């Protein structure tokens, strides 16, 4: 008989309850209230409005992504596990796509602008595939960006007294016209990822006709 018992569910349970309450607040009274009536899918990039800067300090906005298929995801550079795993996975997918990766926009938007300034983003993305761009900016503009992608994030305190960010870990895929095509969820089998990206890239030609 195989069995695995895990103690210490108490802290996790309290955290989960806190998250549930927060999610409720977010949807009912918080910034998510605006998104309450929709299907939870990201808006088209053409309908989003926010102004950020990339890791080279250049102003960027969602309209700049239109014209090429895009992969967009949220994270932060102080993230020990989920974000480096996602960035490393994406780097692997881009390697697999080879030269086709040059026809994609790949954007990592921080949810922790307090610590992730332009320099921090530049150093961090420099360790991953060169196609990956890092975007940061004011808290307000990042909140607007997250709202457009229907992504959520919140600050949480760790046992060591620091803070970490809980955030939407899905990768959002858009076609060249800026329409949301699909997402790659963090827990889904990673081998589905490259076919999904290829599909988003194929929509480019279909969208043009």
């Amino acid at each position, binding site marked *: 008989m*195989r*069995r*695995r*018992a*895990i*103690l*210490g*569910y*108490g*802290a*996790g*349970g309290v*955290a*989960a309850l806190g*998250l549930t309450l927060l*999610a409720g607040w977010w949807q009912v009274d918080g910034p998510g209230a605006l998104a309450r009536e929709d299907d*939870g899918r990201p808006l088209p990039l053409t309908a989003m409005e926010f102004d950020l800067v990339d890791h080279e300090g250049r102003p960027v906005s969602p309209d700049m992504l239109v014209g090429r298929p895009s992969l967009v995801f949220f994270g932060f*550079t*102080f993230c*020990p*596990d*989920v974000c*480096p*795993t996602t*960035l*490393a*996975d994406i*780097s*692997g997918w881009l390697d697999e796509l080879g030269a086709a990766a040059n026809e994609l926009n790949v954007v990592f938007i921080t949810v922790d602008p307090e610590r992730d300034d332009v320099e921090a983003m530049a*150093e*961090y993305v420099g*360790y*991953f595939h060169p196609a990956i761009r890092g975007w940061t900016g004011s808290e307000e503009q990042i909140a607007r960006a997250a709202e457009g992608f229907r*992504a*959520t*994030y919140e600050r*949480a305190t*760790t*046992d*060591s007294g*620091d803070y*970490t960010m*809980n*955030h*939407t*870990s*899905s990768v959002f895929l858009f076609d060249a016209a800026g329409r949301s095509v699909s*997402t790659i*969820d*963090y*827990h889904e089998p990673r081998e589905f990822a490259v076919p999904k990206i290829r599909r988003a890239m194929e929509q480019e030609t279909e969208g043009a006709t």
Partner: protein
Amino acid sequence: MKHVARSTLVALLLTPVLATGALAGSEDVVVENAWSRASIGTSRPGAAYMEIRNAGDEAVTLTGLQSDLAMMSEIHRVTTDARGVSTMAPAGAIVIAPEETVAVAPGVMHVMLMHLRRPMQEGESFPLTLTFLDGGEVTVAVPVLGIAARGPEG
């Protein structure tokens, strides 16, 4: 769920009948495929991964971790909810049944290394000590791979 987990542990603890061999407990724990990612400086927390196998015939309980690399080390479990939001939280004590392997792997669990005393540099390794409920300890050398590493092979 919580009650089931607790009562399972209580049952295991209260059943010394199972202890047939002379050698048992944490002496039979084998840690394999340990790896970690390099850090940028010391301000960010680090993460390490490994497989913890109980090769014995008694359940063992992992209660804590220590390393001279970080002021605080603990196992965190990552959960992703229906809306795609990922959250990490301390996993607490982990009971490993006989012949079972617990995978501390990206997307599932990680050893969170908090308040680094020195940067984690690619190519180095650091000792990590796992402490078990029976007082036993297992120390493993954890290689530091690149920041973009995806597994023990790099």
